[in-house]
């Protein structure tokens, strides 16, 4: 493959993880159940992807109680914002270079 994949962060290769980051980019914080509904994935699947992003320190957890029920919310960290922006820029460059190649042909 000619196009460099530099800048496309590995963490965003999964569609679910990309979805989580997209939703958190435009919301201050989102609770687990809402994320599950937006992404249409199972509990286990979502939890493992969230863990992975947490390990990268792209997102962080906020635990609280709504009444007596525990409520887990997620939000994007500064590092996460930067990584997501870089990823968007990389995608943009990829699209631009592809368009240029097509014009050359």
């Amino acid at each position, binding site marked *: 493959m000619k196009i460099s994949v530099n800048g496309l962060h590995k963490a965003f290769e999964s569609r679910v993880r990309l979805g989580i980051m997209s939703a958190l980019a435009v919301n201050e914080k989102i609770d687990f159940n809402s994320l599950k509904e937006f*992404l*249409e994935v199972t509990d286990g699947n979502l939890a493992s992807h969230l863990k992975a992003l947490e390990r990268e320190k792209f997102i962080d957890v906020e635990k609280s109680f709504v009444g007596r029920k525990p409520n887990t919310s997620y939000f994007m960290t500064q590092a996460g914002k930067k990584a997501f922006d870089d990823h968007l820029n990389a995608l943009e460059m990829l699209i631009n270079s592809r368009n240029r190649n097509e014009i050359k042909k």
Partner: protein
Amino acid sequence: MKEERDPIRDITDIRSMMERSTKFLSLSGWAGVLAGIYAICGAFIAYRFLGFEPGVNNDGSLCADSGSFSLQQVIFVAVVILLLAIITAVFFSYKKAAKRGEKLWNATSRRLLVNMAVPLVAGGILILILISKGFVGFMAPFTLIFYGLALYNASRFTFEAVKFLGLIQISLGLLGSFFVSYGLLFWTLGFGLAHIVYGIYIYYRYEK
């Protein structure tokens, strides 16, 4: 080798997720059309059968010779129309959300309602105060203004068209406050005609 990724598809996914997680898009055009029809029927009943044609002074207070309509009955009709419109909206939104595989009561619908509730509750209380002081002429135009503010405020969390609907309601409410004796006419234009036009637009734009 990793799967071949299409960056354009990635961008599309990102955009749709951003929209999905911020906007409640299960509002139905049909609910708008029906709400408009209820409003026109209600205005007709109030005007024709209850004789709601309050002669008002320029300050919106009742004239001495302002006929013999029953304020209670007019308010009762208004509340019935409001309840019918809400039930219709919830019903159609529920069906549309189910079709889109979403829940009706989720993070986006919650946010939409909270943003509508603040101007609506403030307006509702103000209107009750105005009625208690006898400024019945401002009842109809003020419902338009505060409903319009609620829509404008909530439009960030749903279809763009809701913003324009809000601005139209605010304008009609201001006109109605100036030309107090035409209050019911402006009310019918706002809650009736504007809702029907908005509903048809939403239907053709997003549901067909």
